[in-house]
């Protein structure tokens, strides 16, 4: 089944108000900023965001008032530090108050594995002695182990290097918690740098991230992860993160940033014209050695 659609359609059909959404599952790279910005443009509300660390994207969604709850290990701006929108929401309830379910990177991964294997919780050796245990109702300590309740996202939005129209996706580089997020989620929305023939993807079934049965939408969105990096396609736009950190220090500054980069931008195609894509694009080639899948 052909699952190709626009970002606007994918987001409106598969990420309703109140949904639990996994984003930024590969940590610093492959963050689906384009999908996040479309969520903001469509005025999505009461989302629960699930992720490990989230390099500025969670901060933006919080600042735009889309978020009801954060279930994550870290929310901020990795190269710059604090997330100012996150601070305003948590400290002053601006633009709205949010619920925070703290995790560690390991525990959020295990929470997703618990959902993937459909068990109520998984045990772990982490979190012992940390006050996080007391603030997250989904984590308990018993018998000398932390027990981490399953987290099942309604949808995981994952940006990858390439996918086919049926939703079979290839991603490479470090993958963080992407695999467990996709397996745990009810459904997966793929955004990709390249939309390729099925033959390209099926030539390497080991690199396919998820069973196609989980994937409900494929959005061809080159640069959809900017300013985060995409191995082989885009470098990280460090200055963009730095500027965002500076401009989002005040609610007014964030508002201006949001208008300039999200609300006044109709879509990602237009957005890409406003950044220096040429400089950020990876020009070199360092190709993986082929694997021979022949059977005779």
């Amino acid at each position, binding site marked *: 089944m052909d699952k190709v659609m626009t970002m606007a359609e994918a987001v409106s059909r598969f990420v309703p108000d109140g949904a639990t959404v996994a984003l930024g599952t*590969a*940590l*610093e*790279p492959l963050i689906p900023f384009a999908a996040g910005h479309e969520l903001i443009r469509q005025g999505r509300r009461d989302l629960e965001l699930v992720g*490990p*660390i989230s*390099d500025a994207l969670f901060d933006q969604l919080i600042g735009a008032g889309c978020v009801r709850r954060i279930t*994550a*290990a*870290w*929310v*901020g701006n*990795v*190269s710059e530090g*604090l*997330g100012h929108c*996150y*601070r305003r*929401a*948590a*400290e002053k309830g601006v633009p709205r108050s949010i619920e*925070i379910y*703290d*995790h*560690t*990177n*390991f*525990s959020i*991964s*295990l929470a997703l*594995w618990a959902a993937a294997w459909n068990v109520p919780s998984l045990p*772990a*050796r*982490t*979190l*012992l*002695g*940390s*006050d*996080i245990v007391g*603030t997250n109702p989904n984590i308990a300590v018993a018998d*000398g*182990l932390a027990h981490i309740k399953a987290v099942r996202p309604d949808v995981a939005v994952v940006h990858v290097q390439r996918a086919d129209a049926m939703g079979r996706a290839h991603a*490479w*580089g*470090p*993958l*963080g*918690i*992407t*695999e*467990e997020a996709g397996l745990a989620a009810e459904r997966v929305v793929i955004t990709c740098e390249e939309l390729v023939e099925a033959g390209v993807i099926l030539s390497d079934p080991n690199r396919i991230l998820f069973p196609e049965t989980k994937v409900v939408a494929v959005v061809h969105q080159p640069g959809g992860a900017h300013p985060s*990096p995409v*191995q082989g396609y885009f*470098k*990280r736009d*460090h200055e963009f*993160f730095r500027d965002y950190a500076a401009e989002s220090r005040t609610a007014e500054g964030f508002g201006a940033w949001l208008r300039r980069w999200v609300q006044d931008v109709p879509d990602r195609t237009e957005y890409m014209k406003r950044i220096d894509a040429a400089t950020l694009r*990876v020009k070199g080639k*360092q190709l993986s050695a082929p694997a021979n899948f022949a059977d005779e």
Partner: protein
Amino acid sequence: MVAIASREIRDGDLVFVGMRLPILAYAVARNNHAPNARGLFEVGLMRDQPASNFLGTMGDPPNVVGALWATRMSNTMALMAQGLVDLGFIGGAEVDRFGNLNTSYVGSPAAPEVKLPGSGGGADIAILSKRWVTLMNHERRRLVDRVSFITSPGHGDGSAGWRKRNGLLGGGPAAIVTTLCVFRFPDGGGEAYLDSIHPGHTFDEVRANTGWALDAAEDVKQTVAPNPSELAVIRRLQNTDGATTAV
């Protein structure tokens, strides 16, 4: 600070590197006294040499080129949970005299004065790595008597055997390296003691900027200054690394 941190890395160590300064510290160690040290990154990478281009984050493309393993985060955590990570680095907003780190909440979690980003992998490293080190700008507001919230546990309440009693796998903090000095911990935990003061700084300066009481200790050493080859690596990387100057 980087050179001093790098000396905590022993040759052959598997180091859970983390971000920013520790990335530099790994590079310094790897290019000097620890040629066989490997770096493990929770994003899902293992390396046996520093990246050749600037890293704004551990997940930047240069850190993947030449990697020994690109995998899931949970697999890097598996190695640490097995006690196979020799040393971890953790950044922190606040550290207390027992080595506990707070990167979550200043003030009450229900109504925080400051919401900090959170644990990330910090608590995992603090609990599971064999030993760990934290790097900190030496400010009175950062080196506090007791943190109000323990994100990444050090030696807890400082009582002997606190980590063992609470089932923590790793040995806990080995040192707090600041811009002024190095604090270390007695075996088996307890309270940080002043081990050495960096050249050009004084005990009174350290005491004035530390949030817990320090009794003048005669046997405080002077920190060994960075040697030329350590400085060479730092200078080379700093030229390409905006982030480090910020820290």
